[in-house]
C-alpha cells in the first residue's frame, strides 16, 4: 500500500517538475538588458504604435545614439488596436516602456495616476523649451499645471479636394475666399449620383468633422471652468448643423450607413468624392496612392464666422518609474529638438510640432499645397477636453449619432447631449 501511495506521489512530483521545468532553456537570452547596463551602457525602451513612422523613428534614434554612445534605444512596436490594452497591462505591472507615445485622450489617465515623469522636475538639466511648440499642444500634455509630454507632431485639418472632378465640372479650386455657402454650392454641382460621386461627405467624427465646424461657427465644447457643456449654444448647434445638412438637406454626402459601409476616405482615394475634410496624417498615403498622387490637393477649410479647426498631436512621455530617468530626459530632450523634427519632416509621415521645424515637411510632397495645412494648424484650437469623468465617455457618439441618422434634428441632438453632459458632471463632481 505504501508503495502505491509513493508511486502516486512520484508521479505527481514528476509532472510538476515537467511543468515548471518546461522551456527553461528559453530564458538564456532574457538578461541582455541587464548585462548591458552592468557594463555602463543603458538600454531604453521606446513604445510606439505606428509601423509607418518606424523608419523615421529609427533614424532619430541612430542620430541620438551617435551623440550618446552610452545609451541604446530599442523600439517596442505595438499595433494601434492593441496599444492601449498593452500599455495599461504594463502600467498595472509597473512595467511601462521608459519612453512612449501618448495621445491627448489618454494623458489625464496616466498623468493623474503618477505614471508619467514630471518634466518640470528636470527642467534645469535640459534644453526643453515648451515655447517651441504650439500652445494648444503643450496644453493637451499639461496636467494640474505640470508638463508631462514633449509634443511630437500635430494633426492639422484641411479641405482635401479632387482636382480632376473640379476641372470636369468647370469649378475653380477652393481658396481662401471660400465660406461654407460656397462650399455647399460647389458640392451640389459636383455631386453626381449617376456616377456615384459625392460632393462633400460629412464624416461622423469630431476631429475630421463637427469639432471644426462648431469652432468655426463660434461655438465651443465646455465652459472655461469645465462645469457645463456648450453644445446647447446656438453657435455649437449651427456648427453641427453645417455637417448634418450635407447629408439630409443638400444630399451631397452619403448617409451615415453608407459611410460606415464604405469609408469616405476610400471613396476619395478612388476618385468618388470631390471634397473631404481630413487630416495631415494622410499626406504620405495620398502622395503614394496611384490615383490621388496627381489628382488631389489640399486647401484651407471653408470659413464660417471664423476660419479655424481643431488640433491634436502626439507627445513623447517618460515613465515615472524608469530606472534611468537621466537618460530618459536626455532622449526626450532630443526627441523634442529641431534636429528630430527635421528627420520627421523629411520623412513626410507626420507634421512635426516644433516651430520652424516644418520646412522639410512642406517640401516633402511638392505637388500638394501643404502650406495650407500648416496655416490651418497655426489658426487651430485644442481638441475638447472635458473634466475627468468616466460617465462622459461615449456620450458624445451616443447622442450626436441621431443627428446624423436623421432621427432627430441637430438642435435636439445637441441639446440632449448637453443635458446629459451637465447631469453627468453634476452627479460626479
Amino acid at each position: 500500500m505504501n508503495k502505491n501511495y509513493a508511486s502516486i506521489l512520484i508521479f505527481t512530483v514528476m509532472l510538476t517538475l515537467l511543468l515548471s521545468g518546461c522551456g527553461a532553456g528559453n530564458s538564456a537570452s532574457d538578461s541582455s538588458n541587464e548585462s548591458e547596463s552592468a557594463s555602463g551602457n543603458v538600454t531604453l525602451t521606446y513604445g510606439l504604435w505606428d509601423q509607418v513612422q518606424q523608419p523615421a523613428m529609427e533614424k532619430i534614434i541612430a542620430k541620438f545614439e551617435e551623440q550618446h554612445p552610452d545609451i541604446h534605444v530599442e523600439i517596442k512596436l505595438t499595433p494601434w488596436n492593441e496599444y492601449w490594452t498593452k500599455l495599461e497591462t504594463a502600467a498595472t505591472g509597473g512595467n511601462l516602456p521608459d519612453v512612449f507615445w501618448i495621445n491627448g485622450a489618454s494623458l489625464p489617465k496616466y498623468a493623474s495616476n503618477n505614471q508619467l515623469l514630471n518634466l518640470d522636475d528636470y527642467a534645469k538639466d535640459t534644453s526643453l523649451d515648451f515655447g517651441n511648440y504650439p500652445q494648444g499642444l503643450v496644453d493637451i500634455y499639461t496636467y494640474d499645471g505640470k508638463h508631462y509630454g514633449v509634443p511630437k507632431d500635430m494633426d492639422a485639418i484641411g479641405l482635401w479636394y479632387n482636382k480632376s472632378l473640379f476641372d470636369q465640372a468647370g469649378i475653380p479650386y477652393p481658396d481662401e475666399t471660400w465660406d461654407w455657402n460656397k462650399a455647399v454650392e460647389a458640392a451640389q454641382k459636383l455631386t453626381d449620383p449617376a456616377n456615384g460621386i459625392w460632393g462633400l461627405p460629412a464624416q461622423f467624427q469630431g476631429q475630421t468633422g463637427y469639432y471644426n465646424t462648431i469652432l468655426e461657427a463660434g461655438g465651443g465644447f465646455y465652459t472655461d471652468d469645465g462645469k457645463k457643456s456648450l453644445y446647447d449654444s446656438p453657435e455649437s448647434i449651427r456648427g453641427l448643423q453645417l455637417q448634418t445638412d450635407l447629408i439630409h438637406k443638400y444630399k451631397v454626402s452619403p448617409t451615415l450607413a453608407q459611410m460606415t459601409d464604405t469609408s469616405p476616405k476610400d471613396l476619395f482615394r478612388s476618385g468618388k468624392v470631390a471634397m473631404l475634410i481630413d487630416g495631415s496624417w494622410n499626406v504620405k498615403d495620398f502622395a503614394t496612392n496611384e490615383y490621388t498622387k496627381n489628382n488631389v490637393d489640399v486647401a484651407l477649410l471653408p470659413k464660417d464666422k471664423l476660419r479655424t479647426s481643431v488640433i491634436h498631436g502626439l507627445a513623447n512621455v517618460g515613465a515615472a518609474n524608469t530606472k534611468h530617468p537621466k537618460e530618459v530626459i536626455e532622449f526626450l530632450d532630443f526627441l523634442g529638438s529641431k534636429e528630430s523634427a527635421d528627420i520627421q519632416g523629411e520623412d513626410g509621415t507626420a507634421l512635426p510640432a516644433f516651430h520652424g521645424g516644418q520646412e522639410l515637411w512642406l517640401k516633402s510632397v511638392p505637388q500638394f499645397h501643404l502650406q495650407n495645412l500648416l496655416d490651418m494648424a497655426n489658426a487651430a484650437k485644442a481638441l475638447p477636453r472635458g473634466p475627468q469623468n468616466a460617465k462622459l465617455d461615449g456620450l458624445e457618439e451616443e447622442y450626436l449619432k441621431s443627428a446624423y441618422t436623421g432621427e432627430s434634428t441637430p438642435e435636439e441632438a445637441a441639446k440632449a447631449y448637453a443635458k446629459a453632459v451637465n447631469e453627468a458632471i453634476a452627479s460626479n463632481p
Partner: protein
Amino acid sequence: MTTVTHAKQKRRFQPMIIHIVLMVGSFLMVVPVLWSLLTSLKAPDEVTRIPITILPGQPHWDNFQKVADLLPFMTFYWNTIVTTLVKVLFGLLFSSLAAYAFARIHFPGRTLLFLLVLSVMMVPGQVFLIPQYLLMKDLGWLNSLKAITVTGMFSAYSTFLLRQFFLGLPSELEESARIDGCNPFRIYWNIMLPLAKPGLISVAIISTLWSWNDFLWPLVVNDSMDKMTLAVGLASLQGQFTTNYPVLMAGMLLAVWPMILIFFLLQKQFIEGITLGGLKG
C-alpha cells in the same frame, strides 16, 4: 439480377450526391479565402478601389518578397513551432489525464472539480489578461517563450472534449484490466489512450490551430522581436491610419500555410473507426 444493378447504381449515386454537396460547401468556404489570396497579389491602392476590383491588374508577387524582407520570418516560425509543440504535447497530456479521471474514476468531489474546470470557459477571455501578466512578472517570465507557452498547456476545452470521448468508450476493457490488477494510470495509458486516438487527434488539431494563431496574450506578455510569434509579428504591419493590406495578406498566407499542411497530414489519421479487439459487437 435487377437488385444487383440497382445496388450498384445506388453505390455510384450516393457518392455523387456527397460530392455535389461537398463541392457547394467547398465553394462557400473558399470564396473569402480566395479573396485574401487575390488581395495578397494586388497593389496597395487596388484594395480600397471603388468599385471593387476582383482580380489584380497585374499580380504583385513581390508582396511576398516584401513581407519576408520586412519581418524575420525564420525567427517567427521557430518561436511559433516551439511554443505550439510544447503547448500541444503538454496540453494533450494534462487534459487527457484529467479527462480520464473525470470520466472514469468516481472520486469524491469529482463533479465539483470538473465544474471548476468548466467555469474557466464561462468568463470573457480578457478577464485573464492582467492577472496572468502580473503572475508572469512575479515569476520573472516576461519576455520569454515560457510565458507564451504556459497558459496554453491547461485547457478546459480539451479536457471537456476528451472527457466526452472517454465517456463514449465501452467500459468492458477497463473492467477486465482492473480485475487483472492494473492501476488506473496503466489502464489510461495502455488501454484508453490508444482507443481515444480520434479524440486526441481532434484536440491536437484544434490546440495547434489556437496556439498558432494565438494573438493577444503573446502580444501583451512579450515585446522583444526575437520572442515574437507569427500572429503577433504580422499584426505589427498594421498602421494606425494606413495599412498595406496586400503585404499583410501575403504575410498571413506565409504564416498559415504550415497549419494547412499540418491539418492535411493530421486529418489523414481519421481513417477507420476504432477496433475493440472483439469485445464488442
